[in-house]
């Protein structure tokens, strides 16, 4: 089963002829991803390794039944690309683009409300479902099919954790990077709800960061709605307040959004909090073992 990206996914890549778009499309194909079309305005009629390129997302939906869109367009054109996908009726929009102004994201969120589309990102590494494929930047070799759901605000830190799991023989159902911006299409809560409902997922690994209140909101949700075990880590315990730690969203402002606040909120919600990320994989393994013995 897995979540979001599955056997039914038919992917269109927006910005497929760009440097990033073409590179990651080829990488995704190696993993078996079903990419049915690409879109680059002005390049309609071209192909990339046999994948047809169109001017509009609507064509990819109409002619190839595309229901998932991966976006690699430059930041200035990305809100438009997202609006186009929503209008074309794409169900899942995965946006890797970094550097979209926050006020544009306020508009995007408004457009998503009441539409049938769900969005992951922006500024995210994308989604991988081992055995099905991927959209985004996650390196191909780190994954293994299995029962742990991974959800994270980071990029390379996520690869690190997935790789730990794989090396311990623990596979993943789906790994999702929700993105490092202040406003993102989907939050931890949304992903936790999907993992909770997914029969393949038996445990969840959640990787948060300083800034905002997404982790606190997730903690609240976990305590009332999530029955599966959750292991969590928060990056940035040593980050100084008022400084943007790379990601636009990773900033402690007005004394809010500290790692300690988040660790405490998660611990209170019954989450297995791990303060040493080198131990996250091992911790998740233990929990799965325990569950197996009980179950």
């Amino acid at each position, binding site marked *: 089963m897995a979540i979001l990206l599955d056997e039914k996914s038919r992917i269109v890549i927006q910005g497929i002829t760009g440097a990033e778009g073409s590179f990651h499309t080829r990488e995704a194909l190696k993993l078996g991803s079903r990419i049915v079309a690409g879109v680059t305005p002005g390049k309609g009629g071209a192909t990339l390794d046999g994948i047809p390129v169109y001017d509009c997302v609507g064509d990819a939906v109409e002619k190839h039944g595309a229901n998932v869109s991966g976006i690699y367009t430059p930041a200035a054109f990305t809100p438009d690309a997202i609006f186009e996908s929503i209008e074309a009726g794409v169900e899942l929009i995965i946006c890797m683009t970094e550097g979209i102004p926050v*006020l544009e994201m306020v508009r995007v969120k408004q457009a998503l409300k009441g539409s049938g589309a769900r969005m992951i990102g922006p500024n995210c590494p994308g989604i991988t479902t081992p055995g099905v494929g991927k959209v985004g930047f996650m*390196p191909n070799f780190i994954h293994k099919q299995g029962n742990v759901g991974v959800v994270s605000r980071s990029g390379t830190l996520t690869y690190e954790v997935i790789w730990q799991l794989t090396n311990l023989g623990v596979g993943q159902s789906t790994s999702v990077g929700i993105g490092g911006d202040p406003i993102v299409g989907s939050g931890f809560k949304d992903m936790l709800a999907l993992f909770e409902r997914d029969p393949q997922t038996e445990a969840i690994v959640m990787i948060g960061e300083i800034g905002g209140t997404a982790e606190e909101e997730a903690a609240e949700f976990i305590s009332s709605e999530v029955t599966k075990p959750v292991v969590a880590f928060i990056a940035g315990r040593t980050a*100084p307040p008022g400084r943007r730690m790379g990601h636009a969203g990773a900033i402690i402002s007005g004394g809010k959004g500290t790692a300690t606040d988040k660790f405490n909120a998660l611990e209170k919600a019954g989450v297995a909090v791990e303060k040493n990320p080198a131990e996250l994989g091992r911790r998740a393994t233990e929990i799965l073992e325990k569950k197996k013995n009980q179950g």
Partner: protein
Amino acid sequence: MKIHEYQAKDLLREYGIPVPRGRSAATPEEARLAAGELSGKVVIKAQIHSGGRGKGGGVRTAASPEEAFAVSAEIVGMQLVTHQTGPGGKKVHRVLVEEAADAQRELYLSILVDRSQRRECVVIMASEAGGMEIEKVAAESPERIVSCAIHPVVGFSPFQARKLAAALHLNSEQRKAFTDITRNLYRLFLDKDCSLVEINPLVIIGDGRLLALDAKLDFDDDGLYRHPEIKGLRDTDEEAPLEVEAKNASVNYIKLEGNVGCMVNGAGLAMTTMDMIKMAGGEPANFLDVGGGASPEQIEKAFRILTSDPHVKCILVNIFGGILRCDRVSSGLIQAAKNIEMKLPMVVRLQGTNVAEGRKMLNESGLRFTVAEGLYEAAQKAVSLVG
């Protein structure tokens, strides 16, 4: 991006928001002339990107142009220490000279983006407790802060300002002025991709008028590409020199107080590496993210930045190769070590794409370094090398 108060007030003026008369001065002589253009008592305010300037002696009054000269002579060039600058303080290059206002009441007004999933929109906040730190008010008496969310499609509606004004106990004349100020401030916020506009205090003066006595404007870095006029307001004197250099090299670097320099790919992993250093009993000297697709040249530049911080006693390289291949990292490290005379001990932890090639290159390079396999092991080794 932050700007100075005098720049913020110029923008407020442009948007029809009342601010005290005055202008900025870089020398005591300019300050004397600026004071001469105003009548009566003036206020001289040090222009640095920090709050709490008054307590540090950076805001003073002068009764005459001559006194304005004398006071400015003391402020310009001083190392101003506030609770936000750190113990070293910040050098003052410029003052704002403006007419003194007889504030009867001090209010607070700000606009920002509320990023909680419940809202995710622009929010206007106001309080009767102006002139104080708003974080303190929020912690001690949150009921004194009122706010309203702005629907992104509907936009600002005057009833919202009326509602806030009522909570601030303004009379009908002042409510009208307050509504205009709020509407214009919101317009400015949207037009310029602000991340925060804060007027603290917004004062009511003797004749009943409202005046923005102080102003803080922060901008969304991601929006700057479409506002060259705002980008032009950047003052690199306010940033750590190494951070300016890093920005020019498209490397994400923030200087910290410790002595373990670190170079990492990815913001989350970079923060985590800092956390691990601390966990191992050390102190990170910086946050440094070379990005997902760093070139050998960028890695060399990052290295130069790390080694030019005199506090750094050891360097920890932590790379998880995804798109960024380990062999490219190694080639950047080798190139950098050759070009810079590297004397500092170094711990290298490579994982991921092309890790075998990367390690082989390092081993054959003749470079001296300690290898680590695991994340925590790397931090422990780096901390032990600092001694």
